[in-house]
């Protein structure tokens, strides 16, 4: 034992130095390969973000050159006092609450089912993932037709089995759940694929051993699959919360924020102020506030999921 360890130790030392040398040799080409990305990132992400931060302290207009007059913290004060800002922020959060749990749970369940399918597994993978490839405008059009009052697919289907259908997109209390349903169908495929990859990483020996010990399928899922997928769940949850907070397209196309502003997300409010009302300075202040919210929500969510993970 001890000799073995010693040899391993001696072997490892040169290997370690070699790898650190390797790192030095390769850092420059690595930087060069990264350069195009970094250049674009600075040009299109960091630069505009800093410019946005600067604009948020000015009365910048979309249709006037320059930054216009200095506004100090006025834009921020106006935003924090604006009922439109708070209500649109709540709409975004409400949408996140409505979409995140089903997108995580359904993604997991469908991946589990697709993983168990013996024949034609490719079909289920494609079927669940296909909607994710479609652009938001296509999804929006499909679902507008499905939700159309009077002649839409959903209402016709529900009437044929004797159920009354709500006014999906026209009723202020139903519009958001309706948008959430179409979004779940649209983006489920992404979480599904992540879970499927996670499932395939679990060694089948574990299930075999569990089966020999007499564990049923449900017990196997609870004691093997779910704990071993904890890291995937963290990833899926964080990505999902951030994606849901960024919602804009579906609402913009399907309801234009209506009926009566009940589905106007905070990004649409920022768009309305910046591009419809030309108040880019104010819109930048709104963006900065929203950025802080997303950062805070992501941090809290990440902390919660991480602590749960360590308990398991």
């Amino acid at each position, binding site marked *: 034992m001890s000799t073995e360890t010693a040899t391993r130790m001696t072997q490892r030392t040169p290997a370690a130095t070699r790898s650190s040398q390797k790192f030095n040799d390769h850092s*420059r*080409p690595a*930087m*060069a390969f990264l*350069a*195009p990305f*970094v*250049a*674009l990132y600075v*040009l299109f992400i960091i630069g505009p973000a800093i410019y946005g931060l600067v604009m948020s302290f000015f*009365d910048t*207009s*979309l*249709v*006037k*050159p320059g930054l*216009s007059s200095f506004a100090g913290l006025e834009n921020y004060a106006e935003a924090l006092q604006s009922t*439109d800002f708070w209500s649109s922020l709540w709409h975004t959060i409400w949408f996140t609450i409505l979409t995140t749990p089903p997108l995580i749970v359904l993604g997991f369940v469908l991946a589990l089912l697709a993983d168990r399918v013996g024949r034609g597994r490719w079909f289920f993978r494609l079927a669940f993932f296909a909607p994710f490839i479609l652009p938001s405008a296509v999804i929006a059009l499909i679902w*507008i037709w499905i939700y*159309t*009052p*009077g*002649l839409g697919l959903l209402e016709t289907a529900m009437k044929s089995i004797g159920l009354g259908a709500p*006014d999906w*997109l*026209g*009723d*202020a209390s139903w519009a958001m759940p309706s948008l959430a349903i179409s979004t779940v169908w649209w983006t489920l495929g992404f979480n599904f694929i992540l879970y499927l990859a996670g499932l395939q990483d679990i060694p089948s020996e574990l299930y075999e051993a569990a089966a020999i010990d007499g564990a049923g399928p449900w017990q196997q899922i609870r004691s093997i699959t779910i704990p071993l997928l904890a890291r995937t769940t963290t990833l899926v949850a964080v990505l999902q919360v951030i994606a849901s907070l960024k919602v804009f397209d579906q609402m913009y196309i*399907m*309801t*234009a*924020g*209506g*009926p*009566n*502003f009940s589905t106007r997300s905070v990004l649409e409010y920022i768009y*309305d102020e910046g*591009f*419809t*009302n*030309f*108040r*880019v*300075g104010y819109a930048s202040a709104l963006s900065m506030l929203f950025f802080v919210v997303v950062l805070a929500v992501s941090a809290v969510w990440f902390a919660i999921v991480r602590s749960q993970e360590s308990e398991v």
Partner: protein
Amino acid sequence: MNLPLSSYQGSGQGPTRRTFLKSGLAMVGVSLGGAALAGCSSDNVASGLTISRKDPSSVDYWNLFGGGDGVRMQEMQDGYRKTHPSVGLSAVTLAWGNPYYTKLSLATLGDKPPDVAVAHLTRAKTMIASNLLEELTPDALATVGITPDKLSRRAWDAGLVDGKAYTVPLDTHPIVTFYNTDICEKAGLLDSDGKLKPLTSEAAFMEAMAKGKAVSKAYGGVSPINNETATPWRVFQSLYSQLGGEVLSDGGRKVVIDDDKAIKVLTLLDSLRKKKLFPSSVDYEGSIAMFANGQSAFLFQGEWEISTFQTAKTAFSMAPFPNVYGGAKYACQADSHTLCIPKQPTRDDKAFEQSLGFIRSLLDQSSTWAAGGHVPAWLPYANSPAFKKLSPQSDYAVAADGAVYDPDGWYSGSGSDFEIITGSAIGSVQSGQQTPEAALAQMRGKLEKLAGTASPI
């Protein structure tokens, strides 16, 4: 994309800082160029990127027309090319609405505007306030034979700012009445000529809707509510203006809604829903389908939908929006497509005259434009026997004389926040989510906030 990579492949030591920078820049250049090529291969974009001046002997023209209007505008552009073979015309069609005005404003600010652009009359006001449009003096217009007396009086006057002209109206596009001739005949709503009898009172209007509903077995009339704010505003504004009501004054700095008049109109819209004469939940496409399928006797919408129903072979005709409250003073909501010349520091007189010539050429082709339903503003055509014979266009052309444009204000105009705010509140009454009083309070509150905000233009 291979270029920057291959440039340091053989260098062994890896790239120096300079080549690294160079390759980065090359990459940016390649991707920018690629994006430009993929997005739009027009000359304007290319010249914008390379910062080269455009060919002085050509006319750059921007418009926002899609669908049938887009096809007709192309016909008119071809007409210009035929009559002016020596002038190169490069026309760009951009997406309708706010993105168009954003692009037009930014291009003008960046000294890269088109020579001639289309703008809604109410939106051109914003650009004039931002000092982005050239003044069109009477002398300049006269050089191409355009004089105010040859243009629709209402549209011309509405476009003036402090008595100065910056735009030439091409048309007026009012909200009108589409009626199903089969249903209305059975319901006894047509006169001996087969035209709709005027609906000149609230009682007559409600009765006509009820009779239409009795025949259609579904609804009397329809106008879109879901995912739509412009149409609710247009319907409200038409009726409210007939009562003599105004929404904004003092260039948008004051909200002057007359509560009694507004409540009267909102209550009428509310009762149409309560009596199930109008559907309480329908989107734009749905309203079109409903009318085309005979589920509704009437549709209240802009005249531009004319081609839709001509194509669908619906048995229909058109009339001005009902004069429910106006009496002798007819009013209906409208806007105009106008032609304007954005400011350009390097433009010489010859280029300016050429641009005016292009505008004149479009006016001369008003017959092509009128086929799409728009009421021509060019009187030499609008008063001609040819237009009088064009049916049903000539039946509602009179509506243009009662056109009420959206009030002045930096947040007002077609597709503006003003229309979103008012249309959302009006729609909430039409769909039964709010009482007229609550909707009015909401509309007033949001408008007053904008009225109190310093203008960004």
